[in-house]
């Protein structure tokens, strides 16, 4: 299984690489302007978080849009990656009414393979100024936190997932289970 991490400049991009490595996956961090042709043989992508404010500065998101449009395998967008996925596919992201930094809790509203085996409510680590305000067409919201309605979303048919919180961070509960569940999706789609 080969899963690449697209680097959008996040503090925790390298943590995503580490969690995938620990799960036994062949993984690599690639710049977000890597041509799609370089992703041949890659089974899935993680779009990392980043300093870019996607609403204000979409150019900093490089070729993320091309990956979402033309990459065949599953894609997991995290934080900025998640927000970009929403805006690129016709939804919207905007400055959050209450930005979240550090500890929060998510409540799962919609059971999904991504959260299989997890409790309905658990502690997560956050670090965001913006949030998804309008879901793109074809997506369902899966989870929320007290200050953010869309903590998780997925496409109904395509294996596209977005998470506002950071499953790669040591302090997020069940983070590595979420990655493992994502890898299950990847296995099923190869």
């Amino acid at each position, binding site marked *: 299984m080969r899963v690449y991490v697209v680097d959008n*400049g996040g*503090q925790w991009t*390298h943590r995503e690489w580490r969690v995938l490595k620990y799960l036994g996956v062949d993984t690599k961090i690639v710049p977000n302007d890597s041509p799609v042709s370089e992703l041949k043989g890659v089974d899935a992508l993680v779009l990392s978080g980043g*300093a870019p404010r996607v609403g204000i500065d979409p150019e900093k998101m490089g070729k993320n849009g091309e990956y979402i449009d033309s990459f065949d395998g599953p894609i997991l967008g995290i934080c900025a990656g998640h927000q970009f996925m929403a805006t690129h596919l016709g939804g919207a992201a905007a400055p959050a009414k209450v930005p979240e930094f550090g500890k929060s809790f998510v409540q799962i509203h919609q059971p999904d393979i991504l959260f299989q085996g997890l409790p309905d409510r658990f502690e997560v*680590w956050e670090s965001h100024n913006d949030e998804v305000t309008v879901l793109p067409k074809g997506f369902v919201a899966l989870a929320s936190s007290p200050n953010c309605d869309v903590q998780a979303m997925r496409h109904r048919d395509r294996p596209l997932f977005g998470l506002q919180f950071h499953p790669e961070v*040591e302090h997020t509960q069940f983070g590595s289970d979420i990655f493992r569940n994502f890898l299950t999706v990847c296995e099923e789609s190869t």
Partner: protein
Amino acid sequence: MSFDPKAFIAEQVDAIRIAAPGKAIIACSGGVDSTTAAVLASRALGERLLAVYVDTGLMRKGETDDVARTLKELRVNHRILHAADEFFAALRGVTDPEKKRTIIGNKFIELFEREAQAFDADYLVQGTIAPDWIESGGQLRDRIKTHHNVAGLPENMKLKLVEPLRDVYKDEVRAVARALDVRVAERQPFPGPGLAVRVVGDVTPEKVDLVRAASAIVEQEIETAAQEGRFPRPWQYFAVLLPVQTVGVHGDVRVYGHTVAVRAVDSVDGMSATYSKVPHEVLDRISTRITNEVHGINRVVFDVSNKPPATIEWE
């Protein structure tokens, strides 16, 4: 699968041999990262390696003697430089934390280049770990703080860098250190710029003495309480001298003294952290001892911030 320290050691010793075909010096602070890098490099290069430790005057109590002993025990070829005056002179009047870090980084390189020339070395080995370059930023990544060993390096540096620990975090470095039998494997992290970033505001030898004495008390009390099983030893624990003076009363006399913050956090990799739930009786002992034993400090506060939103260090 998880991290395999033995395989990592074999890989990196080979990689260092390839990366540094000539003589090299290693910047060694005596902490887990640089000591582990020194042992790896020493295995790869033997007599072609010289470890250089700089006493910046910004180190903790007893640190210089302790580092000298560690390097001797590990049979790493080494040299100790005493440069406190140079560091304090360079830092005089500087209050901006990023400037402090850059000045210290540049000063280190100046000394290392001097030593490298004397030793005829072309390579500089550093114990840089993942959070150092991540937080230092570059291209898309925002700079959270200048780690002196990354963003503090001058652009025209002649020495070629070799960084065997670049892709690992502290917990993984500790696993490597244990496998190499390095005594300091469990030591708490200590920033390269030393106590200069634990004195908020301008850095003077007097203020550094205050924070050094306060930090020694924090370390002793927390380590004792942890050994007695009263709470798990935090990942990192120290004192910060704040640029705030407040009123106190000592023996019926008004005093106007300094404030220190006690910081203790739990973490695995330094990239996220929660403040440690230090028992009140331990905080009480720390507070009483600092305000009684460290002349000039009359108030102690406890930092209850997580990372994010705060960082572990204050600067």
